[in-house]
């Protein structure tokens, strides 16, 4: 396997009894990038990350992380890995400082490294005033900053983040991502799982995972440009009725309502899709406008996973 990839997998599969949580996933993740796993809950994102960290043994398939085979060489890899779990997993009855000191000791940083790294983390993650506070008393955003500070204290080459910002307000989420871009710029490869579109859009590379399978991969831009559907935006006074009408058409893959507007995904092979829809909605009054629009990430997601109310009707 080529060493220029931080992560490579071939046919990565994990079964729990009869249920296949991860099904033949192939990944090539370049170094020093933020790579996102986008998928609904239960799609197999966490299971994949746990296999990549060596926490779970794959049922079949091959994994190499930073050139180490996992799980065989997982122990040697641990020093170079940072892992931030979905739920807060530091000690709530220890203070912020004690938690950081604990992680520094566990990764056996030297005395001087220990002091300087904790000092850096204090500055970088705005923990200054919180240092003597028990971790259990922190807010969601503060816990997230502490979690990232602890996971990066030993300057890992590879950082795994499992839905890091699901319990965090938008401002904290933006700050959090600024820190991630800093880390990536310093050469850290970051793998982040999310079900939030605005987060996914920030990633350098993205894998859309649905029911354990990798259904689309690429940069957010290329995914949006290469969408396998015609995207129409419909403005109407009665979007519910329009949606009901559209959902009856066999060439409509899905309809999503965004406020008073609708996004309809049409089968690309539909001849004159725009005209057809305009004709269909003629009776909806003069306020009804139909136009072609560039796809957003949610359209890509819906198109790739086939998951939305509209998609079920169309299917």
């Amino acid at each position: 396997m080529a060493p220029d990839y931080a992560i490579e997998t071939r046919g990565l599969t994990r079964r729990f009894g009869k249920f296949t949580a991860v099904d033949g996933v192939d990944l090539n993740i370049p170094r020093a990038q933020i790579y996102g796993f986008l998928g609904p809950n239960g799609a197999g994102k966490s299971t994949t990350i746990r296999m990549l960290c060596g926490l779970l043994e794959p049922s079949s398939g091959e994994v190499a992380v930073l050139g180490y085979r996992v799980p065989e060489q997982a122990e040697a890899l641990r020093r170079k890995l940072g892992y931030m779990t979905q739920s807060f997993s530091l000690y709530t009855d220890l203070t912020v400082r004690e938690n950081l000191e604990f992680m520094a000791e566990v990764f056996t940083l030297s005395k001087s490294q220990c002091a300087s790294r904790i000092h850096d983390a204090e500055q970088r993650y705005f923990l200054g005033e919180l240092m003597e506070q028990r971790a259990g008393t922190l807010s969601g955003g503060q816990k997230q900053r502490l979690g990232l500070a602890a996971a990066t204290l030993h300057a890992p080459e590879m950082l795994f983040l499992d839905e890091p910002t699901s319990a965090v307000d938008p401002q904290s989420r933006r700050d959090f991502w600024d820190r991630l871009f800093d880390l990536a710029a310093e050469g850290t490869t970051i793998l982040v799982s999310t079900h939030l579109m605005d987060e996914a859009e920030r990633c350098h590379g993205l894998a859309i995972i649905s029911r354990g399978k990798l259904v689309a991969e690429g940069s957010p831009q290329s995914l949006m440009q290469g969408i396998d559907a015609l995207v129409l935006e419909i403005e109407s006074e009665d979007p519910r009725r329009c949606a009901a009408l559209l959902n009856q058409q066999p060439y409509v893959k899905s309809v999503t309502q965004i406020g008073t507007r609708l996004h309809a995904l049409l089968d690309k092979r539909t001849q004159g899709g725009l005209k057809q829809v305009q004709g269909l909605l003629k009776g909806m009054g003069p306020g009804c406008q139909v136009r072609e629009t560039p796809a957003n990430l949610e359209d890509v997601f819906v198109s790739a996973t086939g998951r939305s109310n509209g998609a079920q009707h169309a299917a």
Partner: protein
Amino acid sequence: MLLDPLRRTRAIAVKEVRQLLRDRLTFAMIVGLPLLQVILFGYAINTDVRHLRAAVADLAGTQLSRSVVSEAQASQVVDIVAVAHSAPELEALLRDGQVSVGLYFPPDFDRRAATGAEPAAQLMVDGSDPTLLGVAQGIARMPLATRYVPARGTPAALFEIRDFYNPERRSAVDIVPALIGVILTLTMVLFTAVAIVRERERGNLELLITTPVSTIELMAGKIGPYIVIGLIQVSIVLLLGWLLFSVPVEGSLAALYLAALLFIASSLGLGLLISTLAKTQFQAMQLTVFTFLPSILLSGFMFPFDGMPRFAQWIGELLPLTHFVRLTRGVLLRGAALDGMWVDVWPLLVFFAVTMVLAVLKFHKRLD
């Protein structure tokens, strides 16, 4: 680095101590449990039966029979609360539960005592209470045998019972040394049984196993602080036993602490093993109770070990508490040295080694 494993072990231990000091309930248990147990067991459990309610039917009415009655009363073992005039009347008192002991002197008591050919008097005992039966049987032999039979020089069934190590027959003296083991079993096994399960339940383990901390470092760091806590508990029990019940320390304190160290280690080993088997803290507690009961019942703490059936004795020999109870009684009451009690030392070492190896093997640094 050679010292890295030590640093990681120390990091775990320091963390564990910090958590312990902040968990008031656990901390209260460390000090409160020995205190409560010593006082409860020391005062409440009393196998030394005194003041049994008794009735007398003295059909002889001689000087000899009267002196035996007053002797029995003076011993405080029996309190004469009723006087009967015939054997059936005495039996009725026993049957109705008004008395638990009946003293019957037949009319020819003096002659019987003088010849010693047949029992001189009868001691009727309420056998429905087994401890009472045993105790009363012991009493029955003593005063008549030692005092009156030798006067005629007949050596028939002569028993002089001398209690060597607890001459006043105080239960606390027997119980407190064994209590050290009982308290350690309860707290040490429970604390460590919960220790790893708690990290799993709170999600800490998911993070911990992605760090370089090895299984052995994790286990060693976890049990280190509890060894110290165990020794503190030993000191509390010893001090209380000495202050409240004048429990002696005949042997060397060093020997006692060494024995305690071995026992603490084997209890912690068992706790860790439970911790790797249980999925929740609740399960860990159930498993702890499951191991605690046989320890209490079969170790010789509550019931005499020699009186147990063979099968129960085998199980008892497998329990660390059995050996530790023997060691503490030996060191504290008989002044024994550990090298003389090797047969009870090596089982503790083996138990510790086996449980630790099993715990380390059973614990995977994985989630599945």
